[in-house]
């Protein structure tokens, strides 16, 4: 059976002046998998992800996402992806329902469909009572769940999550990963950056970035075998020691 790739990157590079944030990275992501994108702070994860989302133009190399070229067809790429940024970026002066309606509308969903999906989604999350609450009044954990739900509201092929669980408690993180699995079950490819090593264990495959380059890429089980250690944490430490850049 021929493999279906939804993301293919080849020599993808981004330079800011003299500084090379992402240095010729090459990898492929299968359709439907949960792909973990690991690295210390400043390793170039976010830059790479922004290039794949069409937010940042690559300086060199090429990449296709959902079959479209990120350099030439950025707007086509955007029709097929969802994105949740590191910094919470929903409108906090709009209500929960209004945020969903706005982004549903932007992706061209019909009003009736938006309303149905909103009600179903909020019921699943146990959010129904907060439907008309202003987003800024929600606790951080709820905001993160809402941001994720919004990123997959229009049923994209791929969802990009940039450190989605930063700053939330372990229970909420656990619940969050359940949401990710549910999305994955619906056939959505998940591309997630994180620096929590326990989360890395939940991924089908992970890549580890050091100083703008991908230093390792395989399933967590194979990586542990390859480095001869017991946990992803040790794999990461072994690689991170080679870093030249300060993690700032």
């Amino acid at each position: 059976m021929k493999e279906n790739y939804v993301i293919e990157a080849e020599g993808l590079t981004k330079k800011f002046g003299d500084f090379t944030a992402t240095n010729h990275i090459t990898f492929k992501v299968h359709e439907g998998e949960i792909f973990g994108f690991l690295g210390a702070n400043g390793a170039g994860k976010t830059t790479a992800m922004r290039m794949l989302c069409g937010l940042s133009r690559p300086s060199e190399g090429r990449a296709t996402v959902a079959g479209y070229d990120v350099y030439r067809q950025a707007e086509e790429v955007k029709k097929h992806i969802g994105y949740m940024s590191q910094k919470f970026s929903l409108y906090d002066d709009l209500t929960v329902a209004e945020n969903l309606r706005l982004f549903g509308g932007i992706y061209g969903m019909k009003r009736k469909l938006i309303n149905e999906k909103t009600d179903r989604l909020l019921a699943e999350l146990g959010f129904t009572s907060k439907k008309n609450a202003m987003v800024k009044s929600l606790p951080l954990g709820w905001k993160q769940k809402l941001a994720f739900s919004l990123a997959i509201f229009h049923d994209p092929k791929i969802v990009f999550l940039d450190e989605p669980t930063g700053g939330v408690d372990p229970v909420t993180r656990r619940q969050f990963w359940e949401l990710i699995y549910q999305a994955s079950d619906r056939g959505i490819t998940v591309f997630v950056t994180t620096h929590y090593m326990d989360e890395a264990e939940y991924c089908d495959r992970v890549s580890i970035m050091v100083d703008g380059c991908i230093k390792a890429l395989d399933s967590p089980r194979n990586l542990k075998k390859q480095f001869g250690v017991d946990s992803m944490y040790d794999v990461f430490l072994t690689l991170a020691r080679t870093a030249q850049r300060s993690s700032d």
Partner: protein
Amino acid sequence: MVLKYLIVKEFKQMMRNIILPIVFVLLPIGVINVLPRIATQEVKHLKFSVVDNDHSALSQRLMNKIAASSYFDLVGAFPNYNKALATIESCEADIVVEIEPEFEKNLITTGVASVAIDANAVNGMKGSLGSSYAAQIIADYAAQLRDERGLDASGTTVAKFDVAPRYLFNPTLDYKVYMIPALLGMLLIILVGFLPSINIVGEKEKGTIEQINVTPVSKIEFILSKLIPYAVVGIFLLTFAMLLARGIHGITPAGSVALIYAFALVFCVVVASIGLIISNYSSNTQQATLTFFFFMMIFMLMSGLLTPVASMPAWSRAITEVNPMRFAMEAFRTLYLKDASFGDLSPQFWRLCIMAVVLWAWAIASYRKNS
């Protein structure tokens, strides 16, 4: 119909802001009620000091005549010029009128006498208008003296003109009538220009623009969604301000109201586009505000708001040719004061339209969905 969702969002955010709706109501009231009363360059109630070196009946009468005029208020009579000058130095007086010694004698024997008028001309307009008012009163006085003494009756050869100035459009020379239409333009540039200039940059600072940029929303739709709400606000503000002008000052347009709206709409597109362009090129709110303030100041100064464009030298008049504020202000003033037709104002209108299209296109081009 993506646009509809985006516009609804902008309106909701605008109305949920604690300050903005208050500003929308209070600012027009402040601008229309207060500014016309203080923004006046009317020259009246000039304070004058007198040095009467003659102390004659005729010099006394001249002093009284000046003091009786509605343009002048007497500060006091002083024994010498230096004492009177001190009142100008301390800004207690604007003008010193000095009557020469032997004033009466000269007038009777030689027929010619002189009076010195020294005006504080730090404010050049006030100084020169004030001294010419004084000169006019003195000339009237001379004519009065001639009449009394029957000099004119002595011969028919004396040439005399009966000059009657008549002021059209603003017969009482009321400064308010001139300022209010211009203030409408100012109100629009302050709100409809300033708010967009901090809108996109605000979304950049908050990070929400990221979530929009990653969607397939088109640049045209996004910019339109930022522009249309402010144009609507502009039209609302204009209506409110025009009603205030009518209610408070009883000033209504002499020309077509529909034309005022047409001009206002195009002008709103122009200034909102300028605001959005500034916002697109700025990385933080402080920078955007300062940049907007800088351009607004130049637009206002070069528009004829305070001083007439016709008085400018050629090079700066050339600059005003690309100043949207100038054309909007000319249109508002003309439509308020004169019953002008569209034909009279079509050059201004088409120029504003061209600016609107160019600036709008620029606003779209300068909005970048990726870096």
